[in-house]
């Protein structure tokens, strides 16, 4: 049985509960398979969410149009829940980038699961690896 089933119509959004250094937030993020683990990050949140962090690491990232943009990061946002599926108290720790643009969850998290996009039936499912 899938741990999470989502509507999928060209794009897919996942409701997550996250913990930023003790502050819990519930939000919707875009499932972005182009946000590869090679970036070193697995979650992109709005810049203003950085204020919940007890510390941040700042660095320059290159965005799609070639600009170098300063952004805050933290190495340890905890994903506590996806859809109705709750993780244990430690959650899943994902390095996170705080910057403008759509909120997105990337492959660093997605690769932990079997993710199926079912276009004809307009749904996506997350399954545990066997």
């Amino acid at each position, binding site marked *: 049985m899938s741990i999470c089933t989502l509507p999928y119509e060209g794009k897919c959004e996942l409701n997550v509960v996250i913990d930023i250094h003790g502050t819990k937030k519930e939000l919707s993020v875009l499932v972005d398979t182009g*946000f590869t*683990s090679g*970036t*070193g*990050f697995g979650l*992109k949140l709005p*810049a*203003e969410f*950085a*204020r919940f962090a*007890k*510390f*941040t*690491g*700042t*660095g*320059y*990232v*290159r*965005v*799609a149009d070639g600009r*170098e943009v*300063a*952004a*805050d*990061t933290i*190495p*340890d946002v905890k994903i506590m829940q996806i859809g109705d599926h709750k993780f244990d108290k430690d959650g899943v*720790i994902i*390095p996170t*980038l705080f*910057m403008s643009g759509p909120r997105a969850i990337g492959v660093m998290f997605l690769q932990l699961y079997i993710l199926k996009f079912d276009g004809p039936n307009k749904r996506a499912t997350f399954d545990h690896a066997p």
Partner: protein
Amino acid sequence: MTQIGIALENRHHCSCFGLYEKKLVADKYDFGLRRLRWGDIEESNAVDLRAILGRQIVSKLPTRLRIENNGRFIAVTYTGKVLAVCDTLGSLNEEIAGMHLKENYYIERLGHNTIAQI
């Protein structure tokens, strides 16, 4: 108390750098911050300022360290302390996550302008 440098030296929390350190590197790396007032700094500007200062701190690290670690990822605090140097951003993040830090830091890939392409 309206200027960043003064506030830092008096152990006040600085929204720009998030430090409680008694003395920052402001004397060594002053590039006009003292002219700014608290109200002038919005969070987006604070991120830019942290990045500018961080880049300057890394540029002042010993040349040998920077050459020997060219291409590796480095994290430094705004007091100039090197937290970690790792081959990948992933391993740097893992190492920092285990440090239970209380202060902000700057990340750079030595010899590169950016740490990631998003």
